[in-house]
């Protein structure tokens, strides 16, 4: 008799606990990432495992790159200190799961904005911090001049789980060329395989081609073909359904770009506080501007971003131009200077 009572008792307790959990978990969670970030004191940022110029760690573990600067901007805006970022290096395959699971709060890892990713995996793209396109790299010794010269049997090295894999399938199909894809999970393995001669060409975003060529035995032996076979707008990603956090990340990126447009940089921002231009006053957080409140931040958020990190132009110069990875800004020039970099007004 005792046994039965015990069994029934424990079962009902268990059922109760389970239903209680079922109610508590998931759907009704309302705390914003903004609040948790403030209380934990650092921004959890997912970056690549090493793409020079975008996100790359030096020997002592300091991360630099224009993707890294997005996370630093958010840290400066929310926590007041651009260095309060915890970085997680992710492969292309791991990145979305890490964000979905809450292991990171911003994914800033040269990730292409596509419909499928935006709509079906529970994530939201907040903007574009680099306009890129897929290209092909070949050995100079081949004398190849155009992607139209690829012939049947060409071996192509690339990364697993990227839009690159899909674009090249479309591209070679439209050209009627039979090719062999060799796909690796880690970017370094792709570079190594191409460099050793396992593949005839290496394809990925053009910026990454330029960045990765620095890792090859002799970077001068290789050339990127002129054609661009796809649009790759790269930008930071957050989880869907947390609009407060989404807004903070989006406007941290926007003010970062707009500061360049109005000529505000880390050197002149203190003197810019005297400016009579209302747009500049809003960027530097002068007396009477209140755009921080709407975001759940104080009014010096944008000042700190520019003061600590600089504007987009400074970041580009530091990470991509001075390092000779992408000296030309191309489409990533401001719209006022012939590029397509255009952000909504910070007001």
């Amino acid at each position: 008799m005792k046994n039965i009572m015990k069994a029934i008792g424990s079962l009902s307790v268990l059922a109760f606990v389970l239903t209680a959990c079922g109610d508590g978990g998931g759907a009704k969670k309302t705390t914003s990432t903004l609040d948790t970030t403030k209380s934990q004191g650092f921004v959890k940022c997912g970056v690549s495992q090493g793409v020079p110029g975008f996100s790359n760690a030096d020997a002592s573990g300091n991360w630099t790159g224009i993707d890294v600067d997005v996370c630093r901007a958010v840290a400066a805006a929310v926590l007041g200190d651009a260095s309060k970022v915890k970085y997680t290096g992710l492969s292309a395959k791991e990145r979305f799961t890490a964000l979905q699971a809450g292991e990171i709060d911003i994914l800033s890892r040269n990730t292409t904005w596509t419909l499928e990713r935006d709509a079906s995996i529970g994530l939201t793209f907040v903007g574009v911090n680099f306009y890129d396109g897929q290209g092909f790299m070949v050995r100079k010794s081949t004398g190849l001049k155009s992607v139209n010269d690829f012939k049947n049997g060409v071996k192509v090295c690339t990364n697993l789980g990227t839009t690159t894999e899909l674009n090249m399938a479309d591209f070679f199909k439209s050209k009627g060329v039979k090719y062999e894809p060799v796909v690796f999970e880690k970017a370094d393995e792709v570079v190594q395989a191409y460099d050793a001669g396992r593949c005839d060409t290496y394809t990925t975003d053009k910026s990454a081609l330029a960045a990765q060529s620095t890792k090859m035995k002799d970077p001068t032996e290789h050339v990127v073909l002129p054609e661009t076979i796809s649009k790759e707008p790269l930008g930071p990603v957050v989880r869907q359904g947390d609009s407060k956090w989404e807004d903070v990340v989006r406007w941290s990126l926007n003010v970062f770009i707009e500061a360049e447009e109005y000529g505000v940089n880390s050197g002149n921002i203190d003197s810019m506080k005297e400016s009579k231009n209302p747009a500049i006053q809003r960027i530097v957080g002068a007396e009477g501007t209140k755009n921080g409140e709407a975001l759940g931040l104080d009014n010096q958020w944008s000042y700190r971003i520019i003061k600590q990190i600089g504007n987009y132009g400074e970041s580009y110069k530091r990470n991509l131009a001075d390092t000779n990875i992408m000296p030309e800004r191309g489409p990533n020039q401001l719209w006022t200077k012939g590029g397509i970099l255009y952000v909504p007004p910070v007001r």
Partner: protein
Amino acid sequence: MSFLKNKVERIDQYLSDHPRIKFVLPQALLFAFLILIVGYFSFNASTNLEARGIDTGFSFLNKKASFDIQFSLIEFDSSMTYGRAYLVGLLNTILVSVIGILFATILGFIFGILRLSSNPLASGLATSYIEFFRNISLLLQIFFWYFTVLRFLPQTENSIVLFDSIYANIKGVYFPKFVWTNLSFLIYGLIFTFVSIYFFNIYARKLRENTGKILPQFLISLGILIILPTLVVFIFGVGVEFSHPKLEIKMGIANYIGGSSIIPEFLALAFALSIYTSTFIAENVRAGILGIDKGQKEAAASIGLTNAQVLRLVVIPQALRIIIPPTTNQYLNLTKNSSLAAAIAYPDIVLVFAGTALMQTGRAIEIVTITMLTYLTLSISISIFMNWYNKKVSLTER
């Protein structure tokens, strides 16, 4: 309270009167409890996925895959479905496992027997082979073959040429493709040949058991195997031509076109899996042979059997009973270890399905579940087959 106590006592009484129900009830409760747990976790997962706006379901299997696969046993291109891509990955996994098992078994038997040899050179060689490859992690061995050995093959233009028709270079091994005429006749002929050999052996055995007359079974079988197919080839005009791979250099890019080829990723994986697993099988073989009592061999010799007959008729049939069960484990290990393919870009089920397809669809739970069930099914099939074979060779008590 006393009312409740009364009720419980009556239930207890009822159960003691019905021992069958008393026996089943706790198990039924446990089963219901397990169902509840599984149900809870699935419910929790599905509500949370929905709350986060992540699409779920298996409908993606019918969607266009839009990516290509380097190497496939069946026809595949980017316009086919994710379901088809799954099949391609599965077949590639099975291919490397079957080849791995075949060579691991052959190498395992050779080195297992060699290790018992009285020749110190042979046994020393076998011992070092086994101890060396058994004690290095498999992933490292795969990297060794792939990044160290196969990456140092020459570039396409300077391929190593064997027999004027096989070309080995960093992109793979290229060899002539067989182009058959009237191949179906040869296949029918071979089937007929094997059936004849089977019936001949039954006849020879009956003859031996009834009259004691011993026919040279092996020689006659070999004769049938050579003569019948040759006759078929001549009578029906079965022919074979070789389609040689040709080196084409177009726009500075050199590749072999035509013929057949094996990609280096497959070679590295097959080498590493066969060699690593063969060391364990060799030890099983050694244990099996050592496990046979010396008296068995002496008794066999005393009734006049030759050395070869002792090995074939007395030692091996008994040793197999010891060898097969642990070797089944090794076959299972090899199949599961083949998932390390993902580390070197061999398009097995993990790379193609749990890699690319998972990334492109974002259906992590569904795809990982399918992949796990696939490995489970593969392993269980191997177990069932090996258990059947084990039963067949086990001691039949009359």
